[in-house]
Each structure stands twice: as C-alpha cells, then as structure tokens.
C-alpha cells in the first residue's frame, strides 16, 4: 500500500508540474504514469518554448501568459532551454497585413518584439527564403521536454514525492462521493499496487476522459487534435522560425539540440492512442518547409512522429472553471460537475504554461482541503538548473573534449560517452533502451542508432546484468520503435542511412535470428 496526500495521474509536463508543486507545498505526493514519463503529448511536440508570439493576434491573454511563463522557465529550468530566440517572417505566401496585427498584438501582450529588415533576418538566418519581406524577433526558445519533466519529477522526489512510472491506474476508489485513492498495476512486474490518497489529480491530458471515467465521472470529452512533426537532420536554422501569419499547418521550424523540427498539422484523431502518420501530411510539411528554407525537400529528414493536443469539449463543466484563467486549458472541478469530491481534472494547455497550470490546480486543491499553502515553483530552480546557465549546442562537445582520451564515445551523433551512458543506465535502472534514448538523446541523430544501439545493448547487458533474452529483446524492441519513426519518411540520404543500418543489423549482426 502506497499512502499519500495527493495522487497525480499522468506523468506529462502538467502531471509532473502538479506533483512538483504539491510536493513543494508539503503534500506527500505520488506521481503515476502508465508509460515512462513524458511519453504522451509532452514528449511528442516540437520543443518550442513559446514567447507567446503565436497567440499574439488570436488570443492575447494566452500570449501574455506564455511570455510570463517563458520568463519563469528561463529562471528555473535554464539547463533544459536553449536561448535560440525566435523570428516571425513574412513569406510571399503570407498575408502582409498580418504583420501589423502581429506587432501590435505582441506589444499589447507584453512580448518584447523587434521589427527586423529582410537583410537583417537573412544575415541571422542565411538559409531562409530570400523572398521573405521582413519580420520580427521575439524571445522564443527551444526546450527539452524530457529533461524538463524529469527535472520536475526529480525535484518532486527531493521534496518527498514518489514517482511510479510504468504503472497503469486500473481503478479509482471512492467512498461516499469522496475519492480515496486508486489501484495501479506495475506494467513491468504486473504487480497490483494499491494507493491511498486524500486527493486525486487527473493530469492525463488527452486520456483525461478515460481516467475521469474510472472515478465515475462520465462524459469528460477530450478530443485528440493530432499533429505530426518531422525532425530534420542538423540545424537548418539556429533561431526558431515562425511564419508571420495566422497559425496553420507546417508554419514553424524549431532548432533543438542537433536537429530542426518542423511542425505541425492538426486533424481530429479517432483515439488518443492513434499516432499514425498520414503520407499527405508529410508532403504538406515538406511543401511548407520549402517555403521557409528553399531546398528543404533535399535536406535529410530523420524521423517523424505524431502527438495529440487535448482539446476539451465539456458542456457540463461550468464557465466558472476556466474563466479566471485563459481558455487555453481546462480545470474540471468534479465536485461541482459530478458531485465527486477531492478529484480534479486538469487538461489542455501548452507545454510552456505547464507550471502555471500546476499552480492553478494545486491552489484549487488547497481550497478544497481548506489549507492555504503558497506556491514556490516559480522561484526554486529545477535540479541541474541551479547554475542558471542555458543549454548551448556546444555543451556536449565541450564535455567530450575534456575526456577525449579517457572515455569512449558510444553515440557519435549525440556525443554520448560511455561513462555518461552507464550512469544513466544505473540511474534509470531500466531494461528499455528507449528510456535511455529519451534520457540522453541516445540514437536521435543522423544514424538513428545504427552504430550506438549494438554498443548500448552490450553495455546494458553488463550494467543491468541482463540475461541474453532480456538483452536481445531490448535490442529488438528498440529497432522496432526506431523503425516506426523512420519508415514513413524513408527517402534521400536517410534512406541511404537506413539501408546502411540494415546492413549492420541484418547483414553483419544477423539480429533477426536472435533467440
């Protein structure tokens, strides 16, 4: 039996943020996710730290909120952020009238904005389409979702929280209309884990309807708005580049770590678990990419994925729930909605504002519990971010140069050394190489694991003392996972790479005949 004051269901940015906030306010907190942390929508976005520019025209309150949280995250999560800055540029396909709206919208929302000439933009980003006509600089950035979520989880842990990843909630317990806890199943050992909790926060994002139903709260409708993103090899730009127009498909290019991510599309998916990649959406993103960066189609596309935004359509939830904040997210108070006490659902929103959403949620929880405890999440830095220095692209290379002769380079693309890999394996204590991939970006570069995954398997075999079957299944599972992301975009140089990887895994190693 796990005993807690608060059970948080869902280990995305929102859930991890709520867990951290609650733990910092002194609640004994448990965070549960059916998968690893940040594997849902959070780990499936482009990595944009919003300045708010994208909402400056359509939704000024959201824009202002983004800018405010952008400042907070820069303060508390510097290590997860690269201060790339952002540009909004007008291409010949964009309505020139939008520029003025954009400029005044930014000023109104308190977003620092600077008008730039075409030549200045091209000086900063020479690959951009020379036919653009001016644009603006705003403080967008790139943020590593996995690092941020794990940072929140580890911070929560430091404040006494328990993190149960790979635990699926199978039932939520109620007694006389009050939620009292839940039962989880450990997805690895299949063990049942009863959790007693005085309060439950459902932060399961696009799955929030399913989870609310476990507590008997029916009809919470969260529509999955699916979008695809493509990681292009290398940095085609060093600044986040947005099209200066009404937000639409394929209008943003985010340089993050060693890649550039183009996003995104928006279609209503049948299920939150639908992460299929329609070919026509890939073509659409490539077309749009070509408008921003001529030659985009001939650049190397590494990997494609889909994530679903949670779009709340809930007639039963009263307006009062969301009006205090912008409409960008929804806090559903199940006492008001369903007469179920000590149960809140928080969903929707944007990665950039996750901390604010968490604060809002835990404030509401405190109100229900009749206790006033101030939120401190905007002041205390996340672990590893105490130095307040932003991540920079050369960070890994600099570290590599320090250990050039006395450590091995296991992942050449992402510059991951053997000692770093071993310590991540020890820390994560996992048999799943995909967990290591998200922790370290192992195998996320151009070769997509062609060279490092055999090595990582051999190392995992010894670090975790795996038997042959466990090690083989770690290797094969990883290869299958990787294939899902590369299969829909196999062309050009990446097809060439994929065939080289086949040569290694099938031609040289013969992994298909592992037992």
């Amino acid at each position, binding site marked *: 039996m796990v005993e807690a004051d608060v059970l948080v269901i869902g280990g995305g940015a929102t859930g991890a943020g709520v867990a951290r906030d609650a733990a910092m306010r002194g609640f004994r907190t448990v965070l549960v996710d059916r998968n690893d942390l940040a594997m849902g929508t959070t780990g499936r976005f482009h990595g944009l730290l919003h300045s708010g520019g994208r909402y400056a025209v359509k939704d000024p309150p959201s824009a202002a909120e983004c800018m405010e949280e952008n400042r907070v995250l820069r303060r508390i999560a510097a290590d997860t952020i690269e201060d790339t800055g952002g540009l909004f540029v007008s291409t010949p396909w964009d309505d020139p009238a939008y520029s003025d709206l954009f400029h005044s919208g930014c000023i109104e929302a308190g977003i620092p904005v600077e008008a730039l000439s075409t030549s200045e933009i091209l000086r900063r980003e020479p690959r951009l389409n020379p036919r653009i006509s001016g644009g603006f600089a705003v403080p967008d950035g790139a943020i590593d979702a996995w690092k941020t979520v794990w940072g929140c989880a580890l911070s929560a842990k430091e404040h006494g929280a328990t993190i149960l990843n790979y635990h699926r909630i199978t039932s939520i317990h109620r007694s006389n209309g009050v939620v009292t806890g839940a039962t989880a199943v450990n997805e690895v050992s299949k063990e049942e884990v009863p959790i007693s909790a005085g309060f439950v926060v459902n932060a399961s994002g696009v799955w929030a309807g399913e989870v609310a139903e476990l507590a008997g709260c029916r009809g919470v409708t969260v529509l999955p708005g699916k979008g695809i993103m493509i990681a292009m090899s290398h940095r085609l730009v060093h600044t986040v580049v947005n099209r200066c127009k009404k937000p639409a498909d394929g209008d943003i290019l985010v340089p993050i770590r060693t890649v550039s991510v183009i996003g995104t599309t928006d279609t209503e998916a049948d299920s939150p678990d639908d992460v299929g990649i329609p070919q026509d959406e890939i073509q659409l993103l490539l077309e749009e990419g070509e408008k921003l960066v001529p030659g985009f189609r001939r650049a190397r596309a590494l990997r494609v994925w889909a994530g679903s935004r949670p779009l709340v359509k809930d007639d039963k939830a009263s307006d009062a729930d969301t009006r205090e904040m912008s409409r960008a997210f929804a806090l559903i108070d199940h006492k008001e909605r369903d007469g179920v006490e000590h149960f809140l659902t928080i969903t929707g929103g944007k990665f950039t504002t996750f901390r604010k959403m968490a604060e809002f949620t835990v404030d509401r929880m405190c109100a229900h519990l009749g206790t006033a405890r101030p939120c401190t999440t905007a002041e205390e830095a996340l672990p590893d971010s105490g130095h307040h220095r932003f991540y920079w692209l050369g960070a890994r290379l600099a570290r590599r140069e320090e250990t050039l*002769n006395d450590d091995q380079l296991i992942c050449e693309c992402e510059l991951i050394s*053997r000692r770093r890999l071993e310590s991540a394996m020890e820390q994560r204590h996992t048999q799943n190489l995909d967990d290591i991939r998200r922790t370290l970006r192992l195998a996320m570069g151009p070769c997509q694991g062609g060279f490092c995954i055999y090595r990582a398997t051999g190392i995992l075999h010894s670090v975790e003392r795996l038997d042959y079957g466990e090690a083989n299944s770690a290797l094969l599972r990883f290869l299958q996972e990787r294939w899902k992301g590369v299969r829909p975009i*196999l062309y050009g140089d990446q097809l060439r790479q994929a065939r080289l990887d086949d040569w290694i895994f099938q031609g*040289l190693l013969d992994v298909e005949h592992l037992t």
Partner: protein
Amino acid sequence: MTAAGQGRIYDALVVGAGTAGLVAALRLAQDGADVLVAAKGVGATHLTGGTVDVLGYAPERIASPAAALPGFIRDHPEHPYARVGAEAVGKALGWFKAQFPDGALVGSLEANLLLPTAVGVPKPSTLAPETMAGGDLRNGGRFTIVGLTALKDFYPAYLADNLSRARLGQGDDGRVEARAVTLTPPTGGEADVTPMGWARRFEDAEFRKAVISGLEPSLDGGAVGFPAVLGLDSAPTVWRELNDTLGVPVFEIPTLPPSVPGNRMARSLRTALTRAGGRVVMGGRVVGVRATGRRLEAVVVDAAARPKPYRARDFVLATGGFASRGLEMDSYGLVRETAFDLPVTGMPPETEARWADEYLAAHPAARVGIGVDDELRPLDQGHEPVYDNVRVAGAALAGAEPWREKSGEGISLATGFRAAELIVELRGG
C-alpha cells in the same frame, strides 16, 4: 588501343569500386582487356565482414547453397541469381577463391559455414578468410570470446551469452559452450581505439606478446574468438602466430564497420587489379553519358577540374543500391539510378506498402533496382535493352534483399564475374 587522352578508348569501363566492380574489372584485366574503374568512393566492401555470403536464408537457414540455388532460382525468377544461373555462381566462386593464396579463403558452395556474429548469432557464410574459419559452429565446441577494454564495438559477454544458446538447427547436434574474457592490453592511454587502430597494434610483435600473456591464464583448451582486428596487411601472419603460441584454434569475429576484414578484402581486390594491369580513378561522380542509339559511347565523369568523358567499348555499371547511392529516392518517392539514369523497376505503387510495418519483415521497396536480361543488360519498361554494351552488376540490380537472404557478396561476385565473362566472350577470349 590509343595513347592516353581524350581519344583513348578503353576496352571496358567499370563504374564503381565495390566488390562487383572490382571483380568485373579484375576478370577483364586478366583477359588482357584495357580496363578502367571509375568510382566516386571506395565502395562498400569495407562494410562487409570479409566473408562471402552466397545464400543463407530462404527463408529457412540454408545448409548447402549448391543444393538450394536451383530451387531458389525457380522460386525467385526476378532475383539476380536467376539472371546468371546457379552454374555461374559456382564458377564465380571457384574463380574468386583462386585469386587468393592457397587456403586463404575457406569454404565451398556445397556447405555454408556457420560463423558467430558480434551478437553471437551463427550466420551462414559460404566463404570466409582462414582467420575466421575456426569459429565455425556446425559441430559445436568450446569457445572463449576475447574482448578488449578499449574497443567499443565488441561485447564478449553478450556475444558468449547468445552463442551458448545458439539454435543450430537440424543436423547440427553439437553443443556450443562459450564464455567471455576481457583483456586490457596497453593502448598508450587511449580509451577509445578504433578497429583499424587495433589492427595496426596487432601488427606489432611486442603488443601481441602482451595480449598473449594476458590471455594465457584464461585458456581452457577451447577455441579463442577475437574481434576481427588481428592486423591488416599481415593478418595471416598475426593469426598464425596467435594460433601457434596459444596452442588452440584462434578465429576472428567481424563487427561494426568500417570493418577490418572488409578492408582487407577491398585491398586484396585492388592490389590484384593493379597487378593485372587495371587502373582505378577515384573521386569522380558520373554526371552524364554519351550514346548513339543503343550503344553507349562514353561516360562523363566530374573530375577535379572539369567533366571528363571516358570512352569505352563495353561498360559495367556497379554503383550499388540505396546504401551506396547507386540508387536514390526523392521525397516524392521517385527512384532513380544515379550514374546512367537507367530505368528502375520494382517500386511498389503508392497504394501498396513500400516498407513493412515490422522492421525485420521483408520490404518490397528493398528489392527495387535495375531490371536486366540474362546478359545483364539494363531493360526498359518494354523489356528491351537500353544499351547493348552495358552490363549491370551488384547491389544496383533489382529483385534481391541481400541482407535478409545473406546473399550480398554472392550477388556482387556472381554478377560482377558474369558481366566480365559476357564481355570476354564478345572479345573472343
């Protein structure tokens, strides 16, 4: 034959310096032909494990390629082996073995060897360098797998763990027992030594002494498997010395590219070609061709200073598949052959899956390539030869999935050799 320069007409121009190209060029040069190999890069032989895999799976494991090939050809009429015929595969293999010193290549088409891969899977290979043959698992045995601390491309414990449980199929009743030992020979303080770096170190007698003395206490009478880094040019000598000194069979296990045994193979072929009078020009990309009707006159190569035409009577295209950029697919899914712009066949229509959902399944698009007739001449959509004096060899050919079949080197060897033979026949050789 004319003097060097614009006017020179080669007997044969081979494009591509991988196994198929070098084999074709070598065979032609041995026939006295004036041969030039033009290649953009060093070819993919460096990626191979140094073995010649002719046919390993179809889809069950093949014990004897000689016995299996006629049936395989019947079942796979589009396969390159069907174009050249089983007999030509045998002939090519016999010729290839004879290019090496007696005993340097072990094995025959009658029976595949089963050699451990770097993850400990027994892989069927038809020919293997003598330095690897001791790893043959067909009769089971006791093995000690040796790792090197500063080599990141070889994991002996993982390998041995799998090897001990290898399923050796019917007729292979021998049990395999394997264990791992890791040595830490001196590297001059380097933690990350490449396979080529190790190969150079193994050529040093003092270094070998350190390895031998480190290993001796762990010997148990079983064969000893090293990563395939036992020297480069002097590998046979290094290998023999280790055998003699350790008193047990020693063998190499290939690992990740760039592969030391693949390098040795490529160097052997290049040396043999040069010795036979063939020439290789590297670094130029084919940017166009000149033809008169169905006769190719010249290939234009983008050399250092300017495009340069090379004229020849016969041509062999051996530029490889997608991996070598002999074939290219663009973002719209259009495939093109990059050197001569030949028609490409086998691409599934957009309505069908090009790549299977399962990574390790058969992939239709992997069999894309150039369709040829039985004289290896490239065909157009109407099944007519595009050029009468062009032969296509190696991974550029349609109809195979070499890595699944374990047939890559076999296809390159058989088609490269066959292409040369066809030209030799025309020359009246």
